[in-house]
Structures are given as structure tokens and as C-alpha cells.
């Protein structure tokens, strides 16, 4: 039994070990994508969540399989955390038919509907009302699932954020709004783009609870989100959870990062969410150093083999262009 921290009741020691490996999967996935992007082997654009693994993994960890999520342009982590197969994700980034979207969506549109991932989104704030709609279905059909709605600090300045959360609030919908505040929306510092300390404070305007969690501490994320998920499942309506975190890489390809300092980046790198969980697991005697390294290696190999899978998958044929437009 874990002694030094409190955990949601459904989180077992085995689950924590799985989460440790999953966070490495997320990190290696995005680091590989970064590498292949630089080599010109992945095209288009992509947004990496290196440094933000704990908010994705922690939030999804407390869910049941039937629960759903909506994701963002920075969505690889959410996708893996909700149980996606990295092979199909990587194949999508390579534009192959074996990808989640048959090569038609790419990084910004990966969806894994079977696993309850209603999709990444290229439109900032675009997924927030969709989450509310999924919550409405859950309520009207009495399906009992909860929807986790991921979005960024920047997205909280879109009208869709305000309109959707108000609606979820007045209808008591089972949605948990998770703001991953990584301090910047592209180059816009949250300090310059909102005049409040916490985006979670906006919850007061909708008459719902708002809570700030340490987004780089998976335990804190799990506890905060779990409480909100329980409320939602019990018909008590939505919550805003703000996970304070940081993206280590640039916004997307070719970002000179002129809007922030290297010192600030260094400070946040020291708050590495994976290292933190590793330390906890070792201190608690759940993992040995060797076992932890082994899990890390396993994650690395899975990502490497996803690259092979992607490269060996077929390109879509032009005949498929006009398929899947209408149901």
C-alpha cells in the first residue's frame, strides 16, 4: 500500500506502474514524431506534449472504459492515455491507410471512437461544445458515462468555451473540463492573455466548482479529476480542473520560442512529471531502478516498432479520396 500520498480508490499499484510506462510511451511517441518531422518524413504540422504527460495520463487514469474524451491539436498524449494503439497513431502521422483516420486526418484529427476518444481538433476551442453534446447524450440516454474535455489555456478565450460551459452547467451535464494550462497559447503568455491568476477561477461565473491541480504531478491530477468525475457521474454537473503544466518543445514546427526564456524552460524541465512518478514508485518500493528502466525501454521499443509498422503500411490510393464524406 502506498503510504506517502492519497490516491483515488480505483488506482492500484499495478495501475501506477502502467501509468509510468504510458507516460514514457507518450514522451517517446512525441520525441520520435519530432525527429521524423525534422527529417521530413512526417509532413504537415504537429503539436507535441512532451512535459505534459501527467495531465493526460492522470486525467484518463481515473476513467472507466465507457467514459469519453474530447482532445485538442496537442492530442497525442490524450489519445495514448485513453488506450489508443500507438501503431495506428504513428501510421496516421505517416498518412497511411492503417492509421486511425486512414491517412486522411493526420496529427490534428486523430480519433479513436471505439475507445471513447471523440477526436483531436484543429480548431482551438472546437472540441469544447462537442464534449457538452456527448455529455447530453449520456444524460438523455442514461448511459452513465462521463466526458473529459481537454483544452488549453489559449482556448479558454474562445467564445465556445464560455457558451459551452454555461450550457453544461445549466443542464447539469456529466462533463469535466480540463484546462491544460501550459502557460502559452502559441506565443501568447497566459499572463498577458487573461487578467486572472487561475483559469479555474472562471468556474465561479458558471456556478460550478473550479480546481487547480499541479499538472506535473500525476497524483494530484488523478485526485482532482477523480473528484470531478464522481460529481459528474452522480448527476451533480460539470467542474473545471486546471492543470498547471508546461510544454517543453515549441508550439509546432519552426518555433524560435522568442516569447519565453531558456531559464524558464529549464525551471520547468526540472519539474519533469515522469521523473516525479518514478521517484515516488521507487521510494515506495513499488519499482526498483532496474524495473523502472526496463519499463522505459519497453516503451521505447513499442514506439520504435510503431515506426516500422507505419513505414511498412500502404499509402491510401487516390480512389479512396471521395470515400467517407457522407454516412
Amino acid at each position, binding site marked *: 500500500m502506498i503510504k506517502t500520498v492519497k490516491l483515488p480508490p480505483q488506482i492500484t499499484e499495478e495501475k501506477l506502474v502502467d501509468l509510468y510506462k504510458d507516460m514514457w510511451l507518450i514522451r517517446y511517441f512525441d520525441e520520435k514524431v519530432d525527429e521524423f518531422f525534422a527529417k521530413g518524413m512526417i*509532413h504537415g504540422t504537429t503539436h507535441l506534449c512532451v512535459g505534459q504527460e501527467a495531465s493526460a495520463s492522470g486525467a484518463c487514469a481515473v476513467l472507466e472504459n465507457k467514459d469519453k474524451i474530447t482532445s485538442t491539436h496537442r492530442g497525442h498524449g490524450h489519445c495514448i492515455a485513453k488506450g489508443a494503439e500507438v501503431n495506428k497513431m504513428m501510421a496516421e502521422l505517416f498518412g497511411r491507410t492503417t492509421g486511425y483516420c486512414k491517412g486522411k486526418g493526420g496529427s490534428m484529427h486523430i480519433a479513436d471512437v471505439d475507445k471513447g476518444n471523440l477526436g483531436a481538433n484543429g480548431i482551438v476551442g472546437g472540441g469544447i461544445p462537442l464534449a457538452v453534446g456527448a455529455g447530453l447524450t449520456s444524460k438523455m440516454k442514461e448511459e452513465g458515462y462521463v466526458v473529459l474535455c481537454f483544452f488549453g489555456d489559449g482556448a479558454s478565450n474562445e*467564445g465556445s468555451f464560455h457558451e459551452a460551459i454555461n450550457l453544461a452547467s445549466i443542464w447539469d451535464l456529466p462533463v469535466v473540463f480540463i484546462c491544460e494550462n501550459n502557460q502559452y497559447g502559441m506565443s501568447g503568455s497566459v499572463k498577458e492573455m487573461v487578467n486572472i491568476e487561475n483559469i479555474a477561477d472562471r468556474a465561479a461565473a458558471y456556478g460550478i466548482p473550479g480546481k487547480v491541480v499541479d499538472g506535473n504531478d500525476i497524483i494530484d491530477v488523478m485526485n482532482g479529476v477523480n473528484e470531478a468525475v464522481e460529481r459528474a457521474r452522480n448527476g451533480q454537473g460539470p467542474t473545471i480542473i486546471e492543470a498547471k503544466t508546461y510544454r517543453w518543445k515549441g508550439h509546432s514546427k519552426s518555433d524560435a520560442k522568442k516569447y519565453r526564456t531558456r531559464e524558464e524552460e529549464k525551471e520547468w524541465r526540472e519539474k519533469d512529471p515522469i521523473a516525479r512518478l518514478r521517484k515516488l514508485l521507487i521510494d515506495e518500493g513499488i519499482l526498483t531502478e532496474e524495473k523502472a528502466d526496463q519499463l522505459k525501454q519497453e516503451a521505447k521499443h513499442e514506439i520504435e516498432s510503431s515506426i516500422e509498422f507505419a513505414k511498412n503500411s500502404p499509402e491510401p490510393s*487516390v480512389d479512396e479520396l471521395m470515400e467517407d464524406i457522407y454516412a
Partner: protein
Amino acid sequence: MREITYLEAVREAMSQEMRENKDVFILGEDIGVYGGAFGVTRGMIEEFGPERVRNTPISESAIAGTAIGAALTGMRPILELQFSDFITISMDQIVNQAAKLRYMYGGKGKVPMVLRTPAGSGTGAAAQHSQSLEAWMTHIPGLKVVQPSTAYDVKGLLKAAMDDDNPVIFYEHKLLYKTKGDVPEEQYSIPLGKADIKREGTDVTIVATAIMVHKALEAAAELDKEGISIEVVDPRTLVPLDTDTIVESVKKTSRLVVVHEAVKRGGYGGEIASAIAESDAFDYLDAPIKRVGGKAVPIPYNPELEKAAVPQVPDIIEAVKETLNKRITTHA
């Protein structure tokens, strides 16, 4: 003359105007030190400061409305939207407010603003970042719509757009940003509503917009080898449309192919074709008008599919040949 890129021409047009006119300012997302999503405003905040190069939150409805409100009260804003797809979020402000205020107020007030935004596919950014939605804007009385295709045109047209007292939707094509051309250093204006004949020819007229001007010119060069003489007309502005230049060209060639990247169905090509059908050039036509446009599909991510979704040079060549083979036969 000096060669600069299309992107530099846009920046230069804005900078020169901002030096001349204190009422001109830019607002948009990440246009400060980041230099904008495509780097168009790079260096401008350093010259003009954060009051006149205003970095905004990610709030397309609010920033469009703010530009309109500022324009109505004496400023001359330039609004940069990172991708033209995001116009959807600004739509109420543009369509229900900017376009109509003056008319609804019985001719009082004006909205001198330019909304600049990159459009088009070809970067692998997929369905929500690659659209060509200009036809929507042309349907709205009160808006002007510009689609420059060269570095020279973009500078002169932007000057005219900034001088205009009406809301102008100014579409820049992402793939044109790096293209180069001769551009005068001094300010100059190309009137809105004046088409440009990009290549003279006698057999077939191709009216093409934005990046398709370049594809049409490539097609023309290919066809030239087969002895087919193509005239390429670039309307440059869709509203107002220089119908006269197109009519004159069609009277000369008797054949018309209209090409745009936007989805063919409901695209502006239909408007151009109808304008010819309604004009006295109709009697001169020797073949049905051909429209070449994007397929009715969201832009896919895979690069080969992406290319297949929008017109390419061989599609244009094929359309030209069809008009040459298909004569209109008069039924007795």
C-alpha cells in the same frame, strides 16, 4: 527592379502604410515577436510597438468585432487571421455587422478595415486548415474580396484595400508566400476591380484565381508546345469583378475555362461562367464553358490525396482540350 517575396510584399505594404497613417494598426494572434503564423508580421512589433501591432487572445469573434468597431469609429485596422478557415468563428461579425452597418444606417458610418488571411491547401495541414472559402464572402453585399496571385499584385492590392473605406477580405495563398517577383520599393495602388491578363493568347481563355494563376500559366506553357495559344486572365479581385476584361477575352478566344482551388460546387467559377453566359460574349462561344475546381471533399492529410483534391496542371490541360474538341452544334 528589386525582387522580393509575396510575403515580404505584404509586410512592406503594411509597414509603409503604417508609417504614413497613424490610424492604421494590426491586430491578430501571435503577430508580435512570433511574427504571425506564417511570419508575415515578423519585425513589425519591433518597429511599431505593441500598441499598433496588437497581439490578441485566441478570440476570433471578438477580434473581428473589435476591428469593425474600431473601423466604425475612426481607425483603419488590419486584422490578421492565422488561417482563413477560422473566418467561420468571426462570421457573424463580418457578415451581419461589418458588411451591413453602413447600409442599415442609411449610408451613415463606414467600416474601413482589411481582414488578411492565408487560404488554400498544399501544406499537409488537413481539413480544418486548408480550405478556400472565398465564395462565401463574395455572396455578401457590402464586402470586397481580393485574391492576389503575385508579389507585385499583393503589394498594390493591399495598398488599395487599406485605402478603401469598406471591409475588404484579403486572401493570401500560403503556397504563394515564398514566391518571388519584381516589386517597386515605393507605395503603389492596384485598383480593386481591375483584372490582369497574365498571358495573352488566342485559342482559349483561362480565368484563374490565386495559386491557380500559376498552374494555368504552367498549363499554357505546356499547351503552347502543341500550338495551342492560351490567354490567362487573373481577376485579382472577385468583388468587384472586372467582367469587361473577361468578356473581351472570351470574345477573342471563343472558349472559356475557369479554374479555382475552391470546391467547384458553389464556387466562384459558377459566377464567372454565368457572367459570360449573360454577356454578349455568349454568342461568341464555340464550346461549353468548363469549370475546373476542387473536388467536393474536405482536404485530406495524405499528400497524394491532398493533391488529388484540388486542380493540378494536367486537369487544366485536359479541360482546355475538351473545350477545343467540343464545338457547340446548333440544332435546327
